[in-house]
């Protein structure tokens, strides 16, 4: 969302250079609670908080149950997302789980249940961390030491604040993705690298489908395939993601950082072969806020 704001401000001449950043010490400070931040000022709050849902976890959990039910899948299909994230994290020395060894589907299934069907291993990490990106005009960027990465397109969608007022599926990622692809004049087939906010395992499956990388109900098979693994043609969450790399809270900026590193060829042993276009997709709120950014190597 901030990339969209920064791009518009720079295009309108309201700013020359904008830094987008986020950092937190939520692990050290033990400041994150499982109950989350309940927005008691919203008009629906008095009809929801008395039941004790976890914000936002329980909403994602309900989306997961609906998804598994609709497509005849089970928790092992969700678990593949966490297994994949760990595989990539083992290639990233900065990853929180770098030295944790491989994760198996059985590990995820036997992890502590938090809000079914999501176990602790289906949920992103709570870590310290942060990131920043610098946005400026292409003319200015071409004069800098590092090769510029172009913002090819962006899209946004916000769908709900309540846990009951919109259908669980599909998510607003469909609208934000469509808008970003249209602005860039690209399709999912043009994307060489995908960075999705993996707040929970289910988020990745829903986002892959909504963004058009596969059809409805097909994301679990895609995540279990070699296409998204190291060496595949659609590398997914190459940093190890919020599940195994770093999750300081608003992880979206780290999606952008990883996409830029990969496009610049700075990703070390996890470097993807010559990517030209990367997609970063952030999901926030209760699966309710979506921002898609398409980035490309300057040509």
């Amino acid at each position, binding site marked *: 969302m901030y990339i969209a704001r920064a791009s518009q401000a720079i295009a309108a001449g309201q700013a020359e250079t904008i830094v987008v950043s986020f950092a937190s010490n939520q692990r050290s400070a033990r400041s994150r609670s499982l109950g989350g931040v309940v927005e008691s000022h919203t008009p629906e709050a008095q009809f929801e908080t008395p039941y*004790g849902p976890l914000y936002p976890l329980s909403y994602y959990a*309900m989306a997961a149950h609906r998804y598994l*039910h609709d497509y005849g899948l089970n928790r092992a299909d969700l678990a593949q997302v966490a297994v994949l994230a760990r595989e990539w994290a083992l290639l990233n020395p900065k990853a929180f789980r770098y030295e944790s060894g491989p994760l198996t589907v059985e590990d995820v299934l036997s992890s502590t249940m938090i*809000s079914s069907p999501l176990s602790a291993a289906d949920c992103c990490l709570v870590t310290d961390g942060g990131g920043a990106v610098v946005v400026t005009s292409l003319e200015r960027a071409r004069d800098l030491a590092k090769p510029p990465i172009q913002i090819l397109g962006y899209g946004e969608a916000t769908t709900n604040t309540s*846990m009951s007022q919109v259908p*669980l599926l599909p998510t607003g990622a469909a609208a934000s993705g469509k808008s970003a692809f249209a602005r860039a004049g690209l399709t999912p087939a043009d994307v060489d690298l995908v960075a999705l906010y993996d707040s929970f395992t289910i988020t990745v499956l829903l986002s892959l489908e909504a963004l058009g990388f596969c059809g409805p109900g097909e994301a679990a098979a895609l995540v279990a395939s070699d296409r998204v693994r190291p060496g595949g043609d659609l590398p997914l969450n190459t940093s190890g993601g919020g599940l195994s790399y770093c999750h300081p809270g608003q992880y979206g900026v780290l999606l952008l950082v990883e996409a830029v590193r990969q496009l610049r060829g700075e990703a070390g042993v996890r470097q993807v072969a010559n990517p030209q276009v990367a997609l970063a997709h952030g999901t926030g709120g209760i699966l309710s806020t979506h921002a898609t950014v398409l980035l490309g190597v300057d040509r």
Partner: protein
Amino acid sequence: MTDPVLPIPDDITTPWWEATRESRLLLQSCRQCNHVQHYPRAVCTACGGGELEWIESAGVGVVDSFTVVHRAPSPAFQAPYVIARVRLAEGPTLLTRIVGATDQELSCDFPVSLAWESLSEEFQLPVFRITITQ
């Protein structure tokens, strides 16, 4: 200390909460377009009309989805319990709980019926049970 989960009814929602004392689940129906909505609001979310009347739900619906919460958000809640979205026969979906059922016994699309739990000295909270079919 005030329990943080207790609702604070406002001008729009007071009749809804008052009705819970009599175990009646109210919905709003639009006089202009007949749209039925929950939670209560000042205007119709379908047509923007301001003439809304209270109707009483028959209290039957299906489970849109659910989750069993194993870690409660605060000491005010005793886990595990089932949070669910129930789609009422009248149309609206509400966030609620399913009582008397475990993870293994529940599935999306299961039929459920209205039940009530005490929330405070003042109000009750509408919850649901799996409908037993003969």
